[in-house]
């Protein structure tokens, strides 16, 4: 990884970052915006990237997470403003996994929290090593494994319940 350029890292990990943000936010449009924002930030901070401390994929996921958290905070403030003005609060059903997901999986993901979707995205979808995923989440490896186990169990239960229904 020593000597990898930003262009190479961007080309190699664009899909990973995009998928992570799709899982995290549940909205493809938002994920696209946040992906672009993540790579813009990465370009400005590329000098600080140290390949000896972790892979470019892990580092980019950390930046993407920061961007997503900022978006979540902004969304929460927007919802509170809307509630104050007695408009309908933003419905969690706005969260859609319509494109590229089966209906059962989309429904199960929609009923999971962002924290649960995030750990699934990092460990299962992006196949990050547990150490790297834990670093992105800012938790221990054990906590990461536990969180993943609960998330997968919840998704499986929801999907099984949908099938039965």
């Amino acid at each position, binding site marked *: 990884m020593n000597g990898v350029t930003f262009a190479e890292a961007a*080309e190699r990990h664009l899909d990973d970052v995009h998928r992570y943000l799709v899982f995290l936010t549940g909205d493809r449009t938002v994920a*696209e915006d946040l992906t672009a924002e993540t790579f813009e930030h990465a370009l400005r901070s590329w*000098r600080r990237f140290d390949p000896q401390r972790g892979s470019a994929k892990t580092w980019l996921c950390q930046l993407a997470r920061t961007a997503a958290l900022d978006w979540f905070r902004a*969304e*929460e403030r927007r919802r509170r403003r809307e509630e104050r003005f007695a408009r309908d609060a933003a419905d969690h059903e706005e969260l859609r996994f319509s494109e590229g997901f*089966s209906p059962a999986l989309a429904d199960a993901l929609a009923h999971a929290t962002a924290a649960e979707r995030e750990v699934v995205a990092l460990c299962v979808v992006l196949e990050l090593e547990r150490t790297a995923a834990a670093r992105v989440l800012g938790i221990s490896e054990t906590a990461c494994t536990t969180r993943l186990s609960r998330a*997968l169990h919840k998704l499986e239960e929801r999907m099984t319940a949908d099938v039965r229904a």
Partner: protein
Amino acid sequence: MSAPELEYPHLVEELRLAGPPPSDELRERVRALGARPQRRPRRRLKLLAVAMPVAAVLAALALGTLEGARDSQVVYGEVGAASAPPPTAKAQPWELQEAGAPSAARAFDEVDAGVTVERVTALPPNRTRAQQYRADLVVHVDSLEALSLATSNAMQLTRNMGGYLLSATQDTSADGRGYSSLVVRVPTQKVQRAIVRFAQLGTILEQQVHVQDVQRTLDKLFREAQALRAQIAKLEAEPQTPERDAKLRILRLRLDELTGRSERIAQRASFARIALTLTTEETAAITPVPDEPGRLERAWERSLDILVGEAVVLLYVVLVGGPFVVLAALVWLSARTGRRRSREALLERS
């Protein structure tokens, strides 16, 4: 703990296949970012971490060299074969008269056994300034017997002036040749008299004198010590706190170091060093035994002093600033934990 992925293979497979790819527009946008020129990463912190101690050492060496050079006002005096008529009488054992001996400030003429010896000039020490005084003498004696006598007289002279012998070497051969080499220390105020007396042990062949003024250094150390005493007195008047006690300890350490150094320099200046060579040879070159620190050694010594001073300042900063640094670290850790919890809660709500 087994990997949870293994428990839900179908779900995992579906998750890995799910999700839309990035749009072409996004791809182009990111590629355009990659085409921008990229600056090389700089290791500022690492360079800084290496550069600072190196700069501190270089600064100490530079200051030490400059200050060592300023202190040294070497006055080099060399007297060629100062001629004196040989005594008309056979050399007698000297009767040493310490009581009422003339002061070193006056050049004097010795009268002994009816013989008047010409005045032997020597640079008088300065009475008002501390100076490191060093002299090298070569004196010719007629025979091995005279050599032996002159050697013991020189030692006795030294002792009676309140001085002491540093080293003595004597070597004689069957053909009547020989030499004695003595290195003695005498009180600086008596050095001129000592030189004259030693010269009178025979015929002086060569004389070299070195004087190094150290008063400036002593004055500077004195001023620094006075300033420290004032600071200590002011702190002692304040109410007792752990920070005040820590500051006091540092200041007292520094004061001890300064007074110790000052005493060492004054001690060295209070005694002059004389290297006396007595020889039966008529021509002999002085090979002074280096004893006093040379310029490089002075610079090194001063640099070490500066480095010690820098270390004391650093210790002061650590002791006084330490509790605040710990407090700031605790606050930062607490804020960091709070931020992490807030992020977790946000993700749980979303």
